[in-house]
């Protein structure tokens, strides 16, 4: 392919990507316009118009120098620690949830043993465990990480468990008759078979992680996005408060987009493998 052709195709690709962006964001944009009009008509101090929030957003988060990617000091002070906690908590939940989910999925007594405890754990608001988290971790990021991890754990754990338990019986029987080694069974049958369900759990947990990131910082934190939100709320600074909420929403969109890409890449491999396994009987 000539250089010229390559350039053109990359142009076409970016145009296509832009088209996709417009396609997926127009509704959001339309809702923001509705918000702007409604807020102007209502004139409530609690819900400022989008334009005012946008100004606050830029002032608060994007007033930095170009060398720091325009990110403001406030962003460094409050958002980066929150994101670090989110990453650690989510990572821990994924690691523990997937391994424990597989364990209780393959070993029935363990599944029966933990099942009621898991249901109970799911039904208790994570925030109610704040005092215990403080005692265990002190007033450190560890406390926030713990709460985030705990909240994200359940969906990942249960979905992994379901994925393992729900493995196609024909596949399991086939694997059994082939007398696969434990290692091969695990890597080639169990993990691929359970991975769609595992991904489902991990995907739900992203939203939970963001919510808990904020909630866990309402107390016992000295910095963070949640901390910022409460302090602005206390001072009745609603445009700044909404700017933080908008940042959260953007993070939600971003994380889901990243996750969708990762899932597509990983599960494409899976989808290629699976039909052979599922339909090869």
């Amino acid at each position, binding site marked *: 392919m000539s250089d010229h052709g390559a350039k053109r195709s990359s142009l076409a690709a970016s145009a296509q990507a832009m088209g996709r962006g417009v396609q997926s964001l127009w*509704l959001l944009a339309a*809702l923001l316009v*509705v*918000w702007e009009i*409604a*807020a102007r*008509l*209502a*004139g*409530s*101090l*609690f*819900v400022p118009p989008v334009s005012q929030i946008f100004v606050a957003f830029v002032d608060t988060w994007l007033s930095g120098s170009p060398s720091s990617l325009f990110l403001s000091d406030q962003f460094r002070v409050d958002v980066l620690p929150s994101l670090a906690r989110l990453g650690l908590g989510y990572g821990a939940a994924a690691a523990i949830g997937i391994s424990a989910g597989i364990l209780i999925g393959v070993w029935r007594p363990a599944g029966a043993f933990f099942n009621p405890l898991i249901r109970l754990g799911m039904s208790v608001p994570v925030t109610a465990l*704040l*005092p215990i988290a*403080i*005692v265990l971790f*002190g*007033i450190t990021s560890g406390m926030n990480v713990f709460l985030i991890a705990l909240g994200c754990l359940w969906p990942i754990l249960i979905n992994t468990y379901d994925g393992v338990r729900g493995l196609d019986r024909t596949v399991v029987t086939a694997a059994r008759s082939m007398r696969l080694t434990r290692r091969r069974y695990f890597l080639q049958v169990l993990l691929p078979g359970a991975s769609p369900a595992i991904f489902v759990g991990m995907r739900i947990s992203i939203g939970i992680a963001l919510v808990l990131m904020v909630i866990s910082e*309402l*107390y*016992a*934190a*000295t910095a963070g996005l949640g*901390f910022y939100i*409460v*302090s602005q*709320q*206390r*001072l*009745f*600074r*609603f445009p700044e408060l909404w700017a933080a909420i908008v940042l959260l929403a953007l993070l939600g969109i971003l994380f889901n987009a990243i996750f969708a890409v990762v899932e597509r890449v990983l599960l494409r491999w899976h989808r290629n493998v699976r039909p052979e396994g599922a339909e090869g009987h």
Partner: protein
Amino acid sequence: MISRRIGAAAAVTALLFASACGGGYDAAGSANATTKVSVTTFGCEIWNTWAISKGVYVKHRLDVELVRSGGGSAAVAAVLSGAADFGYVNGYTAINAYNTGFPIQMVSGANVNALPPAKPAQGVFVGKDSPITSPADLAGKKIAVNEINGINQIVTASWLKANGVEPESVSFVALPFAEQIPAVLSGRVDAAQLGYSLLGNNNDGVRSLADPFASSNKVYIATYVAAKSFVAKGDAAKRFHEAMTETAQQLNDPANKDESFRLLSECQKVPAETLAAQPQNAIEAAVDLAALDRMAQQMVDLKMMQKKPDLEPFVTDFARS
């Protein structure tokens, strides 16, 4: 094709409907407010408990219904939406909300700090054996308060400032009251600012560095705000203030102490003897404009507010001392 368009239109309408519910609300108070009023509450305020059981509200032709709500923006939202007629907020929050532009007015005071010669009701508590003995020792330390940017933080920061410690050098950590003393005792925070009445059974484990409220002179710990339109509409706000004044008189009468603790004990599920042993904040229904002004100045000094608002129109005439 047509039906697909209709479907699409229906979907848009549904979304618009779902999102546009966030419209405005009329801020006017309820129509039958002449007798029936609702008052937000945190839990068991002694003045409400007293005024209800002793018929003080009824005497002033008020049928009071208590509705539980958090303070701050929740209480302000409650009075502006008409969900409550009187909102319980601390003086700083009230000034801040007014300064932000919310159409509210202060109609009554309730709780102020106990000033000498009374026993201080508030303290900055450290562990009994803590090396911290003076405000200067707190520089760079962690202090637990109930809410970030709340009244306890403002008062403590002002106290530090008055003692030559830069408030920015300490970090304030929000902890529920019940968790503060355990956190101090386990060394997870260095100090906590709360009232003696919230120490629980840890009176012996901690000591207080000082009453930070004393350095601020008089601080309104609890006040009531109402929507401006509600105040203008009738004399219910005035009667509420009069009822509060009468309640304050009765509660400040030493002869009524035991009875008030007995009532409070029923509501709070804490033994009356425990309550009686704890120094309490003072009750004051009249609003001292000079004190409010100092409170506003404190917030300006702490950079929580740009400039001091004109408090004249904020405090209703009948509520002033």
